[in-house]
């Protein structure tokens, strides 16, 4: 018996780290959506959070109301997210092409609020369970309990990252997107169609956002207007990793997820004077600390100015 009343076990720590990875994966999916749009179009897309929200609701609509198979609903919601991303790009972003980035960023903030209110108008303000097949089931690994939803989250995220990596590294559309991200004008000059690149970026961001929304709502989570707010925690994850780096988005997401879960576990024990719910502040505190040391994020690129 320790004198400080320390009752943290190795198993509790392992469980926390595991759920930290799972939470981090969800943030990584959201952050990856942010990064892909930023890389291709240099727009900080706040509407990413509404893709998360709409994705969660679409999946709920199909899986619960229409009683479709959950996995079918998941894929269909991702397609829905992709379509939504393309519509936003086609109807709004494209019309401001060439305008100052600030105007485009404000436009995405507008989209965020509009979509937030539209979803509330359609589906109402209450939280509801996604009724995913994972629920609150756990598997026991010795004394360690792992949530099935978390296992799925980690698996699905890994698959999405692998697909993302293969697409970017080994397809000609992926090459076109990387070339456009590197130098848009030069990409246009070699005949890469920037409109296609932009459309695909927004579609991928929409699909990743929807997937993130479903993962956030699965297990112990729920679908409700708050989903978009949770997604904004991915914002520090993205900034932490560096706006331009997909790898940074993933690492940033994992750092934030782990930090949040560890704070929730350790802070009441060691720093109860910080009050309750400090784990919601922790991601931002870490973001600030890292930016002070590395203003471009962990994997960010310094802007190279052409002479």
């Amino acid at each position: 018996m320790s004198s400080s009343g320390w009752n943290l076990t190795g198993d509790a720590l392992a469980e926390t780290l595991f759920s930290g990875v799972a939470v981090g994966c969800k943030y990584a999916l959201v952050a990856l959506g942010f990064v892909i749009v930023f890389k291709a179009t240099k727009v900080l897309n706040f509407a990413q959070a509404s893709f998360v929200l709409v994705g969660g609701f679409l999946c709920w609509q199909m899986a619960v109301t229409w009683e479709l198979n959950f996995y079918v609903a998941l894929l269909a919601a991702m397609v829905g997210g992709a379509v939504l991303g393309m519509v936003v790009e086609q109807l709004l972003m494209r019309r401001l092409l060439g305008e100052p980035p600030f105007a485009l960023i404000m436009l995405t903030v507008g989209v965020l609020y509009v979509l937030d209110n539209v979803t509330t108008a359609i589906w109402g303000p209450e939280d509801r369970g996604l009724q995913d097949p994972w629920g609150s089931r756990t598997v026991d690994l010795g004394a360690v309990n792992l949530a099935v939803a978390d296992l799925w989250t980690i698996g699905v995220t890994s698959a999405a990252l692998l697909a993302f990596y293969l697409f970017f590294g080994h397809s000609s559309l992926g090459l076109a997107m990387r070339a456009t991200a590197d130098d848009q004008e030069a990409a246009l000059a070699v005949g890469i169609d920037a409109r296609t690149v932009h459309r695909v970026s927004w579609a991928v961001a929409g699909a990743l956002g929807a997937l993130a929304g479903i993962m956030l709502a699965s297990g112990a989570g729920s679908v409700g207007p708050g989903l978009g707010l949770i997604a904004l925690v991915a914002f520090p994850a993205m900034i932490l990793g560096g706006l331009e780096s997909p790898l940074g988005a993933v690492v940033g997401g994992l750092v934030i997820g782990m930090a949040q879960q560890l704070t929730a576990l350790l802070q009441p024990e060691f720093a109860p004077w910080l009050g309750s719910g400090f784990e919601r502040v922790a991601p931002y505190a870490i973001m600030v600390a890292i930016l002070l040391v590395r203003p471009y994020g962990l994997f960010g690129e310094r802007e190279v100015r052409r002479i």
Partner: protein
Amino acid sequence: MVVGSTIEPTLGQADKALDVENLEVVYNDVVLVLRGVSLNIARGAIVTLLGANGAGKTTLLRAVSGLLELHRADATKGSIRLDGHDVTRLASASRVGKGLAQVMEGRRIFTSLTVEENLRSGGIAAASRSEANDTFGRMLEMFPVLARRLHDVAGYLSGGEQQMLAIGRALMSGPSMLLLDEPSLGLAPRVVEQIRDVVVEVNRHGTSVLLVEQNAAMALSIADHGYVMEHGRIVREGPASSLLADRDIAEFYLGGGTDRRSYADVKTYRRRKTWGA
């Protein structure tokens, strides 16, 4: 009126790789940069465009390759034809599809991608994948220096290697008309010679070339025909040999007298002349 008729008095529309007619370009809806430029390039020719900084050469290239919109500029008058097709309102990608390629000023390679990825990116617009693969092989033969550094990140290449890469990337789409914007800028004399040889070689395989250069001696040494641009207008044109013999051009672009004047000197000289007036 057909400008450039001095070489081929009966140059028909179909014999022109590029035909720019009375082109006017306005930036931000107010700044008139091209004031009715006409220029054409006979199929298979090398044509050079000379002019001081700010004359509008790069704007003309942007207009031809369809990149004006990105700079908040617009072609308000005139037309651009590629191989007889009007492309004035076409998107840049469609123009590449019609056989146009451009090497931009400052090389503009994709610095974060590898040499191979840079070349492959130029082949995305090629007619077919197998064609792109064939061209890729030919580029490696043509530029052994790139073949040796295929998997290196392009940003770490030397200036000369980057220029070779920029040219190779542009050739990957199999163009019939190549625009080159100051390919010799900032490069050592030996590298400039290599680039000149590459341009001649590319042209020998049937690609028409529009070469924008500050290095007028180099440009005129390989060009068939030349244009001189000033303040958004074509002020002189003629066969390269007659431009080489021209006293004004010698003074401004080749450096008069026995001591070769650098371009920077000419620029200061020009400025003094304008301001002093």
